[in-house]
């Protein structure tokens, strides 16, 4: 909002420079964003907090300035010399919805001469960014910026039966507003109507039909107090934001209605001629109650630590318009001024005292410490997880929580098909109206974004919440998920050429490293059919026997949809479940004193036999000194039948008290191998 330095000077006689005013107003809560240096004035751009509607005018700002400077605001006189007749003789006012319009005052000025405003008025309006129209419109606008009370001038001749009816719009009614737009009205909107039809949208904008024109001779000046929420709703529904609605929404002064109107009428008589009615036709069936709030002076220090004399508290509050109602030994009781809708409790008064004493006077100190800090219980493991994945070349992604459809994706087990999608009624990005049930969609979009920008090496992970609704009417499920995608080449730092292409085992290795970093027991990967994964390159992941996720190569159908022309590997895990698992205890195992003897054996087995099955079968053998078998490699191709492959395992043997002899080892080793051969119908190559 623009405030003129000259205008403030007229109201308070301020001695402060524009720069001083900027700083002082900012310090009391009216942040001045900028001071514009005009030829003969300075204009402040003031940011008024949303609860301080009373400061949306020059008098409102001047009041704060007067408290700062210990001066007075001189409210301009509004004496009307030329009066005749009562308003009620020429017009009527009826309020049909007192909740939405507690007060409505009308006053008439006859025989005005519509024309241009005098120079001083044009200059004043232009200085604060207002466009002059004609003298009557300019005067209402001027008083709005002076008092903060929006006013409206009707052409009296255009009001059917000279009636003002304040009511809700009827079904199907519409109005052409001042901006020339035909607007449909809804029944919850408050309008000003004459005997026939709406002539203004209450508190928002007048109608074109009853607008002041060059032919107008008699004007009816409206000054009213409208319900803030009602004006806000209406303005929002109509997509209108006007100087009037801006102020009514924040609450104007119900007791200031007449003063502003008198000022307006006086200026019209002075600048446009005419004769005013003697009084306002003021409909105010239920006057607002004055609220009183108690302030215990000790609370100022208890809340702010500021030590302020009681006299100073009294001075600040009374200068702001709070009337001292009663003074007892420990508490002062103040009447809240009618323009301060934001004050209702003691803490509000404490703030008034504190901001005019100065927040900069508040000392700084740390609260006494008797708490130990603590991270979220999962944070240590999440940090380990993030570190492990980034060490494996994965970048951390964050996607929006809203997505489009996710039909082709198999969700982690906590979100199986029984769970329905959480849908938004009011999405901001078209089509993204669902809360994500999987992180994979976001990550695949990220892959697409990168490919579209010519980056074909993309390895990223994301940790975040996914949502599902399991029971109508109850709060949705929220679970943490971990997802990874990898595509393109395996890259080395500072080298242009990828070492090789990413495959299934790179992604699996990253997941295994992350699980190890979190100190959890190893996961199990088993071949499985997963809807969004390519058959034969997909696995189900379990932890402690419970299914926690899936991983594999993205199914061709989905890859085609995303226009991926290179293999993309994806994984998603139920992070909530992983974080709930107990970490593995770390215990020292004594180091072997004698070396192991190893034997590599290549077994020719059916392709369907997995390495995990072979390793498990080997582990199930328990002869003395057999320490287990470790995977070495697989071979298929030349010399191997199509339905077979060769799997090489390294068998390890060790004794605690000696280095074993070859013949000793052979005596244990070959029976182990024989057992495997028999179990898998394998041959030793």
């Amino acid at each position, binding site marked *: 909002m623009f405030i003129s330095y000259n205008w403030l000077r007229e109201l308070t006689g301020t001695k402060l420079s524009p720069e001083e005013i900027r700083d002082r107003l900012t310090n009391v809560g009216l942040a001045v964003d900028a001071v514009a240096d005009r030829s003969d004035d300075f204009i402040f751009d003031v940011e008024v*907090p949303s609860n301080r509607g009373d400061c949306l005018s020059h008098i409102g700002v001047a009041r704060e300035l007067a408290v700062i400077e210990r001066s007075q605001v001189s409210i301009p006189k509004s004496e009307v010399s030329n009066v005749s007749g009562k308003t009620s003789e020429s017009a009527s006012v009826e309020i049909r919805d007192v909740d939405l319009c507690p007060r409505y005052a009308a006053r008439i000025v006859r025989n005005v001469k519509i024309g241009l405003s005098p120079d001083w008025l044009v200059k004043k309006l232009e200085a604060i960014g207002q466009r002059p129209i004609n003298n009557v419109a300019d005067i209402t606008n001027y008083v709005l910026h002076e008092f903060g009370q929006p006013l409206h001038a009707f052409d009296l001749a255009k009001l059917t039966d000279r009636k003002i009816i304040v009511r809700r719009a009827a079904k199907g009614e519409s109005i052409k507003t001042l901006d020339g737009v035909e607007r449909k009205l809804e029944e919850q909107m408050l309008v000003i109507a004459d005997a026939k039809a709406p002539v203004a949208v209450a508190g928002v904008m007048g109608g074109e039909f009853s607008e002041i024109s060059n032919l107008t001779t008699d004007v009816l000046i409206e000054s009213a107090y409208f319900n803030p929420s009602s004006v806000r709703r209406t303005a929002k529904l109509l997509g209108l934001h006007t100087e009037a609605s801006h102020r009514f929404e924040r609450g104007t002064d119900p007791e200031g209605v007449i003063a502003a109107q008198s000022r307006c009428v006086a200026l019209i008589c002075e600048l446009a001629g005419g004769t005013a009615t003697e009084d306002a036709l003021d409909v105010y069936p239920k006057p607002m109650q004055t609220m009183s709030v108690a302030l215990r002076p000790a609370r100022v220090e208890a*809340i702010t630590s500021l030590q302020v004399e009681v006299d100073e508290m009294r001075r600040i509050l009374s200068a702001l318009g709070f009337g001292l109602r009663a003074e007892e030994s420990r508490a002062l009781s103040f009447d809240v001024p009618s323009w301060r809708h934001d004050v209702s*409790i003691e803490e509000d008064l404490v703030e008034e005292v504190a901001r005019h004493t100065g927040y900069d006077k508040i000392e700084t100190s740390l609260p006494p*410490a008797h708490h130990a800090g603590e991270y979220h219980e999962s944070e240590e493991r999440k940090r380990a997880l993030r570190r492990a994945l980034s060490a494996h070349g994965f970048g951390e992604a964050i996607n929006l929580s809203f997505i489009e459809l996710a039909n082709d994706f198999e969700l982690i087990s906590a979100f199986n098909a029984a769970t329905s999608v959480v*849908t*938004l009624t009011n999405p901001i990005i078209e089509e993204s109206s669902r809360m994500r049930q999987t992180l994979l969609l976001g990550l695949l979009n990220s892959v697409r974004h990168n490919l579209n920008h010519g980056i074909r090496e993309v390895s990223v992970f994301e940790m975040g919440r996914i949502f599902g609704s399991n029971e109508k009417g109850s709060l949705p499920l929220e679970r943490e998920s971990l997802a990874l995608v990898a595509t393109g080449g395996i890259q080395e730092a500072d080298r242009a050429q990828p070492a090789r292409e990413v495959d299934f085992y790179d992604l699996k290795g990253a997941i295994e490293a992350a699980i190890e970093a979190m100190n959890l027991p190893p996961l199990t990967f088993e071949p499985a059919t997963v809807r969004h994964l390519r058959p034969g390159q997909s696995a189900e992941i379990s932890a402690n026997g419970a299914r926690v996720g899936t991983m594999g190569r993205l199914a061709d159908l989905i890859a085609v949809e995303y226009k991926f022309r290179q293999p993309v590997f994806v994984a998603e895990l139920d992070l909530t479940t992983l974080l709930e698992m107990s970490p593995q205890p770390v215990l020292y195992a004594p180091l072997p004193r004698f070396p192991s003897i190893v034997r590599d054996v290549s077994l020719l087995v059916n392709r369907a036999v997995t390495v995990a099955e072979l390793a498990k079968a080997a582990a199930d053998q328990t002869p003395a000194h057999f320490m287990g078998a470790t995977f070495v490699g697989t071979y298929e191709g030349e010399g191997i039948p199509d339905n077979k492959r060769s799997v090489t395992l390294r068998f390890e043997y060790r004794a605690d008290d000696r280095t074993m002899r070859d013949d000793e080892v052979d005596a244990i080793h070959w029976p182990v191998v024989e057992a495997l051969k028999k179990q898998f119908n394998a041959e030793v190559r």
Partner: protein
Amino acid sequence: MGSSKEEITVAERNPNQEVEAAREAFEREFERFARFTGSGVDISLNDANTEQRALAELRTKHLGKKSAIAGAKKLIGKVAPEERASFGQLVQQTEGSIAQRIDEAEQSLKSLIEAARIERERIDVTIPGRRPRPGHLHPITLMRQRIEDIFVSLGYAVEDDREIETDFYNFDALNIPEGHPARDPQDTFYTTEGFALRSQTSTVQIHAMQRRGAPVRMIAPGRVFRRDTPDPTHNPMFFQVEGLCVDRGITMAHLKGTLAEFVHRLFGPDTKTRFRPSYFPFTEPSAEVDYSCFNCGGPGCRICKWSGWIELGGSGMVHPNVLRAANVDPGEFTGFAFGLGIDRTCARIYQLDDIRLLFENDVRFLEQFR
């Protein structure tokens, strides 16, 4: 006849001349090797190896069993006794000097070969080291971790709670009354079931006070949602950190002290703070907090929009209605609360001109943070 002619020839030449001839023959053939003992020899590894073999052949030829010197040695016993000693000496001397010359050349060649081999195996130590290309944590994660570290060290517990909330936690308990603009579907996302996507992490204040009671000290970093159309300075989702300290005798001085300490640790010990009166429904009194620009330190620059100050966030003393909503007695306890934007702080520190980049996950963007 032939044999007698040879005998005559042998008989004609005396043994001393024999030895002299052998020496001359050696000198002639050795000449090309003499250069290796000098300095600044320029020879390829290949040639050096060839020369080494040639030198070995030269040794066999001039000192081996079939060499002239070996022949001369056999003559020692045959020359006249009075000349035997001096002849023997001559043979030995000649053999010794040939051997020495060859040894020297061999040694030099060996060092030359060694040097050439080392040169051949020289590597370029400036080639980048071999390591996997590291991944990177998201700038929001990095900033969140820094903020958590600071507040944990100040005695705060890190808390979190739901992202989809009831009206009670998102509005009522935070003293945001029915009809307040923040509740408008224009500003807050709602699910079809009527739940709200939390529009501020202040919701966690209520959960934390309900869980822990008072006194309590906690921060709550997390995602929040507001219906802002994406543009360079807005996203419909962003990250905030809420802070709350409730205890007996907490005042605004503690709020100022805590946030001053925080900015010292985040932006450096010279950073100043400024508190301006403001309005938030959940605090009273309320304050907007600014910190002096970490870039220019006051005079004004592009980052602080020429004001010298950067907005940190909102703060204030917890509104008594909020304490009551969480069953904390405002007569006994006071507290302060604050809320900071993680995205915004990231944007300032890293000079991001478009915060939509934060959620685009462009690899070239993500790689820049560590």
